[in-house]
């Protein structure tokens, strides 16, 4: 099992998400993260799908996705050749001033932004690689995470931007 990131360029039609996710459902593959957004081309959207599966499952899914009429392009992004980002918003419990300053310090060292502060909590934003966010969230759990939101990954190939 390995995480794969598939970047899709799809026609911006109602139903295209169902069609795409149905492909995974049919093959019993779990989508671990999914983002949909407009892209540089009008009428098209970009979907970034993270799945867990073997190489052969990935290969199968990649081909079946390309078969979908509304899918214009499928790119399978390798971790080593892509910049991968996830955005995380979290509300951390701070029981006393000591905890507060520790949280602030850690946030700073991770490059997280402080969005809001209340008497007993701090709201933070961190945009990073998913693994780094995982680590940051784990740290914050020591203080108590009241709420956690993650957008799911989006990714872009490195270099000149020539998509394979």
């Amino acid at each position, binding site marked *: 099992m390995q995480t794969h990131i598939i970047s899709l360029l799809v026609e911006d039609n*109602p139903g295209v998400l169902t069609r795409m996710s149905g492909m995974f459902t049919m093959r019993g593959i779990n989508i671990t993260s999914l983002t949909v957004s407009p892209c540089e081309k009008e009428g098209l959207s970009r979907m970034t799908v993270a799945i867990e599966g073997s190489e052969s499952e990935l290969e199968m899914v990649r*081909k*079946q996705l390309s*078969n*979908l*009429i509304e899918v214009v392009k499928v790119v399978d992004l390798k971790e080593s050749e892509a910049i991968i980002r996830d955005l995380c918003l979290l509300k951390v419990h701070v029981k006393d001033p000591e905890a507060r300053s520790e949280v602030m310090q850690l946030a700073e060292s991770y490059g997280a932004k402080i969005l809001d502060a209340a008497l007993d909590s701090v709201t933070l934003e961190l945009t990073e690689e998913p693994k780094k966010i995982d680590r940051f969230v784990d740290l914050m759990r020591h203080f108590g995470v009241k709420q956690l939101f993650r957008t799911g990954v989006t990714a872009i190939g490195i270099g000149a931007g020539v998509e394979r």
Partner: protein
Amino acid sequence: MTREKLSGAEIVVEELKDEGVEVAFGIPGGALLDLYDVLYKEEAIRHILMRHEQCAAHAADGYARVLGKTGVCIATSGPGATNLVTGLANANMDSSPVVALTGQVPTSVIGTNAFQEASTFTITMPITKHNFLVKRTSDLPKIIHNAFYIANTGRKGVVLVDLPTDILAGVAEVDLHPKETFAGYKPNIKPNQVQIKRVVEILANAERPLILAGGGVISADAAVELRHLADFLGAPVVTTLMGKGAIPENHPFCLGMAGMHGQLYANRAINECDALLALGTRFSDRTTGWQLDQFAPDATIIHVDIDTAEINKNMQVDIPIVGDVKLALSGILKLLEKKREKKTGSEWEKRIKKMHEACDSCVEDISREGASVSDILIKEISKLLDDDAIVTTEVGQCQMFAAYYYMTKKPRTFISSGGLGTMGFGFPAAIGAKVAAPDKKVVDIAGDGSFLMTCQDMATCVENDIPVVVCIFDNRYLGMIRQFQELFFDKKYSQSGLGITPDFVKLAESFGCYAERVEKPEELKDALNNAFESGKPAVLDMIVGKEDKVLPMIPPGGSITRMIGTERCKHI
């Protein structure tokens, strides 16, 4: 392109005509009144009123398989559309080009559980190649054109267009007959030349080459190329169920159908070959058995398919070629002919000759030990029909008896539900086949259980003068289920008996069909003659034994190298 102001329904019909549609099978409904109003005065399109939407889809499917031309079926919203589902799934599984038009509630109430609303778009998404829910009347020309383009190019399949009533009733000024297609749809047709060279290298040096022909050979109209290659290589041909007819089954190089209910020596050949050229097949478990390491263990496997997603899906292959089978075959032949002489007189060829004779006598020698009435009847049918006759089948023992014993001579003359295995397919498919080829004899090889699932369309046959002949293998059982219970479930016949009703002769007569009971195989010849002579749709109720079994077979979970029930085969 001509710019015109038309209603949605008029646009649909204009585009259908532009796509060359001559026949549509359907049933109207509230959501389709506008469309049927336009069809009422339209002479270029013959609409055949079916008695069940499932049959409309199967008929369109049968029509498409006979002609290679896209079949069209029409159903109203809600129950009409849900009734189509089985037929669409069936056609799509067997890569048959069908366009389905369905009515839908007005766009303003979609999603409100309006009267006769079903989400046809989401229901049919996983059982179609593509589907559309039309949101603007002005989108219709492009959508209808692309529905046909998508259905009948690349790997063929079903495209459904869901038509809300306000879209059909609405008026728009449109450019008819657009040629624009979708950016995301580029069917892969041209095979890669480098891969072809690699394949030629393998085939030229193979000592025991074998060709496995699937339905793709037929849908690509590549039967001629297939025969040339087989002759040139001295390679025998085995087929899948869908590939039946890709090569005349009496051709000395043809070893018949391979797989679960296939010929013993077709399976043996797969076992013995050192190069396997698989054409337009998806290596379904019915063909490969369930122990893949025992499928062609010594062979370099070459897989030609138009659908990239089939490569390495069920079978890991050594050399894939993605593209049209016809183009790939002619590419291979061209290089091969340059590379070496035609091969004759090899050891393999002698072996094939023997295997062919064994298969033949297995099929020919019907009086041998263990031959059942069912075996004999199919043999008779095979003898009595001419090479151009079209046989459709239902599903069950009847289907596998037909697959085993019916000698198919030409492509598109053996029409059977392969992927979905749909009981009730054969009869409506026969209706579509007869409409497609009125001058050919069309016979449905039916089981009693299967026929009861769609027999109401005898009314369609009688009303529209579509004289197909249904030969019922009347064993009063869901025979295939009974066979499995007998062989693998200690003869506990759980829910496989059908009892004594109906009287098929009276049932058929009540519809106005010609009908006759065939108590013994000797009576078949006259009965079949009478049926054809009557000029009417006909039903022959052929009494067969409930204990007749389709053998030999690969038991479920088994290997292609181990068939059971081979006592009845000739051994060499």
